[in-house]
């Protein structure tokens, strides 16, 4: 592996600017790394589709622009991977599902269009749990992604592909989506940075929805500054998404740079009691969390305890709202216009074709959630389930509002455990769901959150994530505190956490 691949996107942008590397060379290095580590029985399998030709062409165009001094953005020429849940002209978009196998969208998601307009070559589409339903990427219809830290372990989910691609140095940047933790939890278990921005800060147009009121696109990177650079590039109002925020939010790049000084004097950090005490937290996770907290205190932050009593019900509310929205969103996959079509023998009716196609095209977890959502929305049950869940959602928003009266940011471990073994929780959906305990509340409230690597758990040597949450539209705060913690920890470690990851050379056949 060349040292080039270990550079952050910000560093790569500088190298491109100096002329010490071209975008074509950089993009080719990523493609070579993908060939080296991603394929084969023991490969990372972060990618579902690699667009070598398109990426090199985009890189060459970037080099040509640079020669003329006509750059499109600060990250022009830096390659990126995109989660397979965002539509891309010319590249398949499967959402990890058989039902969309081979579907090539005729339009780009706004985020993809903005990446192209900013000159970033798109390496390909990354693996994910089918329709983003899962916390391990094992529910992909195309096989799981492996954790670059331990290839027999899960990379988190649903965006395990994007996190693993970045952790395995296959791409300096990736795009993820986070409905209940799908950016942050994979970030935590792969030792990378993941940000779920404020709901509406980044357009959802072209994001194949799981739960529209919870879904958020966000950056997946190795450094906090890279995430900030990426969010600034893809964020902002989109007239095609009514729920996107029209007013500007404070600069997250400035905030990341400010935080990198390592000074947090005057910043009030609230520790969420409900997400740091009680059962289910792995000791190594809590040890790294407590150490990180001490570093923040040393950097001048004031640490306070806050209580969010309604978080107890967050998981239950989430597992009603999400399946309700998902059951309706997934109704469009009916074999009539695109995607898989299974025609039963005989003279089947349209309904029979729909039924057979959906039966063959959707995996078990997807079916489970469609059934849950359909049931919960049924006449007579709506108030008891969807209605109650929305009330819990309001209570959680109030808990956040009260907590943010006492603290500028709230913190917790990102996930209760480190990466588990592939297959370990596949037969126990509830155990799997609990992995998102700490991330779900912020989706229900629409507030931003970041996961920053906090070190390795003593008991298994696997990465742990530290989560920072801020009020809606105060994304700058999570970047500032996240960048500060990153600086302080890397100083302590003598370099990035990923330096400790296995090199993975030659894992692919």
């Amino acid at each position, binding site marked *: 592996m060349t040292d080039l691949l270990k550079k952050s996107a910000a560093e790569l942008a500088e190298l491109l600017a100096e002329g010490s590397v071209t975008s074509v060379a950089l993009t080719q290095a990523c493609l070579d790394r993908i060939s080296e580590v991603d394929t084969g029985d023991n490969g990372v399998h972060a990618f579902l589709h690699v667009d070598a030709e398109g990426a090199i062409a985009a890189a060459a165009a970037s080099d040509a622009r640079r020669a003329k001094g006509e750059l499109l953005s600060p990250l022009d020429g830096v390659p990126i991977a995109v989660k397979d849940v*965002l*539509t891309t002209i010319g590249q398949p*978009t499967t*959402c990890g599902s058989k039902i*969309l196998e081979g*579907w090539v*969208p*005729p*339009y780009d*998601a706004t985020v993809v269009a903005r990446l192209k307009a900013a000159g970033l070559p798109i390496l390909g589409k990354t693996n994910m749990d089918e329709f983003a339903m899962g916390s391990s990427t094992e529910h992909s219809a195309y096989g799981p992604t492996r954790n670059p830290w331990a290839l027999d372990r899960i990379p988190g989910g649903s965006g395990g592909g994007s996190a693993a691609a970045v952790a395995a140095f296959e791409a300096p940047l990736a795009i993820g989506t986070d409905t209940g933790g799908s950016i942050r939890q994979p970030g935590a278990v792969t030792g990378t940075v993941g940000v779920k921005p404020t709901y509406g800060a980044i357009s*959802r*147009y*072209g*994001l*194949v*929805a799981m*739960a*529209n*009121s919870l879904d958020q696109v966000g950056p997946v990177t190795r450094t906090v500054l890279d995430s900030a650079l990426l969010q600034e590039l893809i964020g902002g109002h989109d*007239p*095609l*998404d*009514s*729920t996107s925020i029209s007013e500007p939010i404070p600069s997250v790049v400035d905030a990341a740079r400010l935080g990198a000084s390592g000074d947090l004097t005057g910043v009030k950090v609230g520790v969420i009691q409900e997400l740091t005490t009680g059962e289910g937290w792995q000791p190594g996770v809590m040890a790294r969390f407590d150490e990180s907290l001490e570093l923040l205190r040393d950097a001048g932050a004031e640490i306070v305890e806050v209580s969010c009593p309604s978080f107890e019900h967050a998981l239950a509310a989430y597992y009603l709202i999400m399946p*309700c*929205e998902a*059951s*309706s969103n997934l*109704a*469009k*996959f*009916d074999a*009539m*216009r*695109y995607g898989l079509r299974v025609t039963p023998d005989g003279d089947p*009716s*349209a*309904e029979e074709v*729909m039924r057979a196609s959906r039966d063959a095209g959707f995996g078990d977890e997807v079916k489970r959630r469609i059934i849950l959502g*359909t049931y919960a*929305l*049924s*006449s007579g049950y*709506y108030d008891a389930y*969807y209605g109650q869940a929305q009330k819990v959602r309001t209570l959680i928003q109030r808990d956040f509002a009260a907590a943010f009266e006492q603290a500028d940011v709230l913190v917790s471990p990102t996930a209760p455990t480190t990466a588990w073994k592939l297959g370990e929780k596949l037969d126990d959906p509830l155990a799997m769901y609990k992995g998102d305990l700490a991330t779900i509340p912020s989706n229900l409230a629409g507030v931003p959150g970041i996961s920053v690597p906090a070190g390795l758990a003593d008991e298994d040597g696997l990465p742990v994530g530290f989560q920072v949450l801020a009020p809606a539209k105060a994304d700058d705060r999570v970047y500032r505190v996240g960048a500060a913690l990153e600086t302080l920890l890397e100083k302590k470690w003598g370099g990035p956490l990923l330096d400790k990851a296995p090199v993975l050379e030659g894992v692919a056949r």
Partner: protein
Amino acid sequence: MTTLVPFDKALAAYDPAMGLEVHVELNTNSKMFCGCPTEFGAEPNTQVCPTCLGLPGALPVVNHKAVESAIRIGLALNCEIAEWCRFARKNYFYPDMPKNFQTSQYDEPIAFEGYMDVEVEGETFRVEIERAHMEEDTGKSLHVGGATGRIHGADYSLVDYNRAGIPLIEIVTKPIIGAGEKAPLVAKAYVAQLRDLIVALGVSDARMDQGSIRADVNLSLAPKGSDKLGTRSETKNVNSLRSVERAVRFEVSRHAGILNEGGKVVQETRHFHEDTGETTSGREKSDAEDYRYFPEPDLVPVAPSREWVEELRGTLPENPTAKKTRLQVEYGFTDLEMRDVWAAGALPLIEATVGEGVAPQSARKWWVAELLRRANDAGVELAEVGVTPAQVAAVQKLVDAKTINDKLARQVFDGLIADEGTPEEIIEKRGLALVSDDGPLIAAIDDALAAQPDLVEKIKGGNMGAIGAIMGAVMKATRGQADAGRARELILEKLGLS
């Protein structure tokens, strides 16, 4: 098969309750939730985009103009306008529904609690409006092969998504009770008046024949004196005013037949057939049909400011009842004349014709006396008879200029209905112009006088009534194209009587 009970007999035993659901397709330039054009009659699947095709990832954005039209319709129907309301997903599977849910409104309609006063045979009925809400249209299926043209039994089906996403306003009445034997007329008059209102608002093409206004007729019967509503049937897509009336009549007869035989009316969707005037069973439907409504998470709530609503109130056309009274005075129509005009749905047509410079009585004469007969013969509404107010005005101007007379004008209308061109072209083609050149007229008079010397003597003897017979011969000889006044002058001149 149930025996139909004659309408009058049915109403002797039962009270009908009706509910009307009218879908109005708005004439906005773009669709409800995307920028696609809405023109009628384009090549299939040419006015589509990721959003209205329901492609994965696409999102809706509300058409502001459609909200404006919805509010104006609501205000014109004396409704309250919601301060805050949301769209909802109505979930069900159907191949012409791109997303397998329709983005509609459920328990938060944009407009609610209104009314419209409907006049039937001089009596006013207040039809109460429950709600008017915004939604999107579905695509259109074409089932090829099979006997019925329905999906069952078809060889294959084609779907055109051009119509998918076109903005609709659905206007729902409260149950209309107490209309008794006038129920079919009240239903028809309500839809007609609603259509006129929509036309006056300018928010829709309002063409029932093209489906831009579609009515569903819900009907139930209850034994006379009972205060409970019976089980209803829902007759879908009744596509002309006449059909609204006929559908009500038919369903009254059918329900009465079932009830008289001790049967139970099935709650179901029914289809109306223009040719037979009957309805047939569609799919069975229960109250429990479960659309799993929930608020559309991809759209933000619609919250029209009170200032905007008041501004829109200022753009409303004149109240139809007030307008009717005003025009009757202005036009000098008698009560009887006005009642005929109203019943024929001729008032907007007469108004437009008068607007083209025609005297009100002339306009009335053409529409109510002449064109109404043709519309009835053809089984269509007066507005769809095939002649426009501008054409009526052009014909009347030709009569005023003595180019044609009333009798020839009727033939011009024949030509207009047959689409033979402008009135002038029709006169030319059909050779209808009045003979105003004295030459041929004098020749015809000379012939007539020579042929009937006895009549000449009678006239000369002072029996002026005999002129009529001579005139008849002259008209016959000139194929009716003689200017009668001039002919009379010439006859008298010839006989030395002038």
